[in-house]
Structures are given as C-alpha cells and as structure tokens.
C-alpha cells in the first residue's frame, strides 16, 4: 500500500451529492485485468463529450469544457472536495484506483458510502469526513479563490486552509498507523496465522458442515 503522511494540494470541488461508483469509473473500463491506468477514464461520461471505450487514446477525445476537472484552474488537483454519500453504489475498487491514478490523494466529504470508504484505505487514498457546515465553507472558499490549496496532515489529523483555519478529523488508530507506514495488511494478518488456524479448528469441530 502507498504510504500517506501529508498532502499540500490544489483543491477541486465536485458539487453534487450521491456521486456513485458508476459515475467515478463506468463499467466498460472494469473489463481490464490490470490495477493501473484507470485515471484517464475517471468520471468518463462527465469529462468527455464522446462515448469512451477501453483502449481509446484519451488525447484524441472530445473534452467537456464545462466539467469541473477540465477547468484549467483545477488541473493537477490532489484534493477532491465532494458532497454527501460520495462513492455510493458498487464495490468496485476501480473507483479509488481511478481517483488515485488521476492524481488525487485526499477526498473530503460530509459522508462516504461504506464500501468505497473502506476501499480507499486499502490503497493509501485518504477519505476525510468533515461536518457538512465545514464542507460548505470549503466549497465557498475554493470557488472564490483560484489556486486554493489545503494542507492535510495525517499525523495531526488536521486539514488547514490558506486562511490558517484548521479542521480536525477522526480516523481509526489502526488505519492511521497502516497509512503512515504503508503497511501490507495481508502480511499483518498473517502474523496471526496461528490464531486463525486455532479458530478454524474449533469451528470445524462445532460446525463441520461449513468445511465440506
């Protein structure tokens, strides 16, 4: 997993609620058997005017000039500011892969869908939940200020604005530790292999039909 400690990044605002994973990365790109290369198709149906299919050359496609990520002022954004229930819908990890591959390191929203939220941590993409009123304020500031950046510090669990205002966020201590150190969760779990085996043996004795 990619290590995450802090990010001083340009912010892009995506002002709509319930952004689903079908919108983040449409299904035709899920046919890939690779883990990389999804960034050019992030928000494909909103970002381009033509219909995208796997294997197309993105540089030759018709860009939708009105889509927020296509505005020159948001090019190279690393922090995505979003609305409630971001990432709802399917469990496709391709959605966080596409966001990360595009260049995002942090997503800030008042709430996230459970599976998406969980998937982000597995790849070192940091989802941050802030109060809706704070998110509202950030939307106003980013829209009013070209080149608006936020400083996200995982150690301190803080998001600092250019006006030196700071918002604190919650994160599970285990997840924080894993992110800060870029730990391999499978490796960590396998350290408990004896416990898993012992649990399994007990279960096999009590409910043998589960092991047929």
């Amino acid at each position: 997993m990619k290590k995450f400690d802090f990010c001083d990044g340009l912010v892009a605002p995506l002002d709509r609620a319930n952004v689903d994973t079908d919108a983040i990365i449409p299904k035709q790109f899920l046919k890939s058997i690779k883990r990389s290369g999804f960034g050019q198709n992030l928000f494909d149906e909103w970002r381009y005017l033509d219909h995208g299919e796997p294997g197309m050359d993105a540089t030759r496609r018709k860009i939708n000039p009105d889509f927020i990520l296509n505005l020159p002022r948001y090019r190279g954004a690393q922090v995505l500011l979003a609305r409630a229930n971001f990432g709802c819908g399917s469990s496709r990890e391709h959605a966080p892969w596409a966001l990360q591959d595009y260049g995002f390191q942090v997503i800030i929203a008042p709430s996230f869908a459970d599976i998406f939220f969980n998937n982000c941590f597995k790849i070192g993409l940091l989802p941050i939940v802030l109060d809706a009123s704070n998110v509202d304020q950030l939307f106003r500031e980013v829209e009013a200020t070209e080149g608006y950046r936020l400083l996200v510090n995982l150690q301190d669990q803080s998001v600092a604005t250019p006006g030196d205002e700071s918002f604190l966020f919650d994160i599970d201590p285990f997840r924080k530790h894993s992110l800060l150190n870029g730990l391999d969760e499978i490796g960590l779990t396998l350290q408990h292999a004896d416990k898993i085996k012992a649990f399994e043996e007990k279960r096999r004795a009590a409910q043998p039909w589960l092991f047929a």
Partner: protein
Amino acid sequence: MQTLYDKLWQSHVVHEESDKPDGMTLLYIDRHLVHEVTSPQAFEGLKLAGRKPWRLNSILAVADHNVPTTRRDHGISDPTSRLQVETLDQNCEELGITEFRMNDLRQGIVHVIGPEQGATLPGMTVVCGDSHTSTHGAFACLAFGIGTSEVEHVLATQCLLMKRAKTMQVAVEGELGHGLTAKDIALAIIGEIGTAGGTGYAIEFAGSAIRALSMEGRMTLCNMAIEAGARAGMVAVDDTTVEYLRGRPFAPKGDLWEKAVAYWRTLKSDEGASFDKTLSLDAAKVKPQVTWGTSPEMVTTIDGRVPDPSQITDIVKRHDMERALKYMGLAPNTPISEIRPDKIFIGSCTNARIEDLRTAAEVVKGRHIAANIKLAMVVPGSGLVKYQAEQEGLDKIFRDAGFEWREPGCSMCLAMNDDRLESGERCASTSNRNFEGRQGPGGRTHLVSPAMAAAAAVAGHFVDIREIY
C-alpha cells in the same frame, strides 16, 4: 440479549486490534464467492506475493458480468470481456477452485447460484467482490460486498479486518396488498430513509410481512439493503429458510443436517434486544413503486407524479433533482402512469429467480407487448432457474407475448456485455440501480418489480398492477 447481527459478528471474531468496541477486528470468513470482474487483480497480487489461497473449499467462482445472453456456442465476441472470463477460468484451474463455467447448467449470477446451491448457509460470513452480496443475508448470514484488495486478503488469510457496524431494525408488519412484492417494500424503505439512510448500519428486516415472504422475496429485499447504504441486510431463520435449503447440493445431509438446523434456529435477535435505530413500515400501505430519477431514493408510487424541483428549498437537493429530470427527459408533475418505456428488462441479482419469473409470466400470459416496446427481455438468474422456468412453460408464455428469452447473467443490469440501452432509451427494469449510464450511456432506467415491468410491457406505459392483476 443480542441482535442477530451481534451473534453473527461475535461467532466470527478471531482477533481484536484494540480493546475498544469500535476498533478493527479480524473476522473469519466462511464463504468466498468470486466473479470475473473484481478478482483478476487479487489473484495477480496473491501470486506476486508468493501466497496461496488459505482454504480452497470456501471458494465458489462463476463468471456472470461479462457473459453473453445469446448464442453461447459462439463464445464471447468482445476480446476484453473474453480475456477477463478466461482469466477467471485459468486462475480457478491453476489453484483448484470450484468454478461453474459459462456452459455449465449451474452457471448464473453469483448471488443467485450461492443460495440455489446451498453454498450460502445460515450463520455464515459470506463475502464477494460485489456490493449486492448483501443478498445472502436473507439466510441469516453476515454477508457483504468487498473491494479487490479485500478479495486478495480473504484469499490469503480467510479473514477480513472489519469495524463493527451499528444495528438497525426495519419492522414491516401487516399484509402486503395484492400484486405487491418485496421489491416494492425495498423501494418504499429506500424512499423513506434515502440511499445513505443505512450507511454505517447492518439492517435486520423483521415483522410479519417479512416472515410471510418467500426466500426469493427476502433475497430481493436484502439485495437492495446496499441501495439504502447498508453494507449488510439480514433476516432471521425460520421454517421458510430451512425448507428452502433442504436437499440443496452444498447443504449438509443426514445427522449433520439435523445438527445444523438446530443451530440455525438460534439465529434470530433475542426478544427485547436493542438496536441502534428502529424503523417500522405498515405493509398494507405499500403501493407499487416506480423510480423517476437517477438514484434509487428518487422513487414514488404508481399513482404519483414526477416531482417539481421548484418546490424544493434545499439548494443541493434541488440541483440534483433538476439534473436527474434533465437526464431522465421528464417534465415536473408528469403522472408516472404516462411514462412510456422503450425497453423492458426482467433480470438481475435482485429479481431473476423463479418466483420473479412466475409473477411476470402471470401478468403477460395471453397478452402481447405494446407496439411502442422495442425490446422486452427476460434474463433468468441462473441456468437452473432457466431450466425450471422452461419445465413450467414460462419461456413459451414470454415468447408468445413478444419477449426474448435469454441465457443467464447480469446482462442489462449493468450492461457490461452486449445488452444495453441506447442513449435516450427508457427502460422499465427489475434491477437495482438507476444511476446515470448504468444500463448504457445515456440510458434512462425506471426501477420496478417484475410484475410492474411485465404490466408496463403489455400496456406500453407504467400501470398500476393492482388494476390488471
């Protein structure tokens, strides 16, 4: 006193990372269902790390998302889809994983075949790289969708790192009206609590209306729990559960069956157990549901109208509604019964089981699809559902009515194969998501029950099932 969720959780705890109740917990996984779309990167990761699957007989694999629903003998024409299915075949063969291949009679949608085979059993933790894994909760399982990194984690360790969810009970009491189904209950609940209403919760569906549902109906309901934001939905074990499982290929036999049933009967919330949240719904008041927008919470009843954004004060909500109506090509205040679909899709892990096909067939029997319907298709949930339906003559009823009778798979629920809507086309669909582009770029989806989809096919517009059935 424990809720069903508490019991399921507690019986699977291997290790706790912290002594706090909301800390990360290592949870044991009994059943791992695998399909072609979310697994290739997990198998690759496993190989690169030099790891092997922890317990092969916990895994059951099937290709469902990419498979064609016509002319299987011609194989898969799209090379990227074909490669993905072949990759699954290859991984399963190399590692010795049980897989139902495309031309196996038992092949079908992963959430249909798990229960059908008895591979989903009460008390299990069931995971799959697919959000609709919540379906299996109908069997008093703790079942939820996972991402690809977690697929690899389960393959390698038989465990997952999880945080305990909060509990919600949705009690549906009373009797459903004639022609009403579990799908209408599901959409009514989502209309009430919204697509994020269940976020952070595991929902237990309870009450007399739920106990009266068949296993097919309970699966429909738990399937849609994720559309309410809840990663897991569940229903307690009763006679209906036990009778459904009796004799299924993967279900225990003989003495073990008796022993298993005795345990399964304990899988219900204790009397007086407390939930973090409760909600109740009067089944008698549920009306046929039709979605009008681009999120399952954008739903109303058949006698309703498309809402008017100008009446909404919340700005974010108003903009979302305006955007949805523009995408859907609908004017505010249009009566739902005046909306005319171009296509009809009866299928998906929500509504492609035998009972769904029977109800739809009953509606179209002796009738014909309306002139404005360009395509009406039935995609059974599995080869065995298809076979059973053919034994009952349902295929003939559908064909005579002008429907196409297809091979099993996910099909136009998410349009990863060739079955899709063209831009601007409107579909009455028994699937679970009406997101923009879900059934094809620019396609417009209205979620309904199988009976309502069948009725719309015949009438050429949405119609109240209670009036014709």
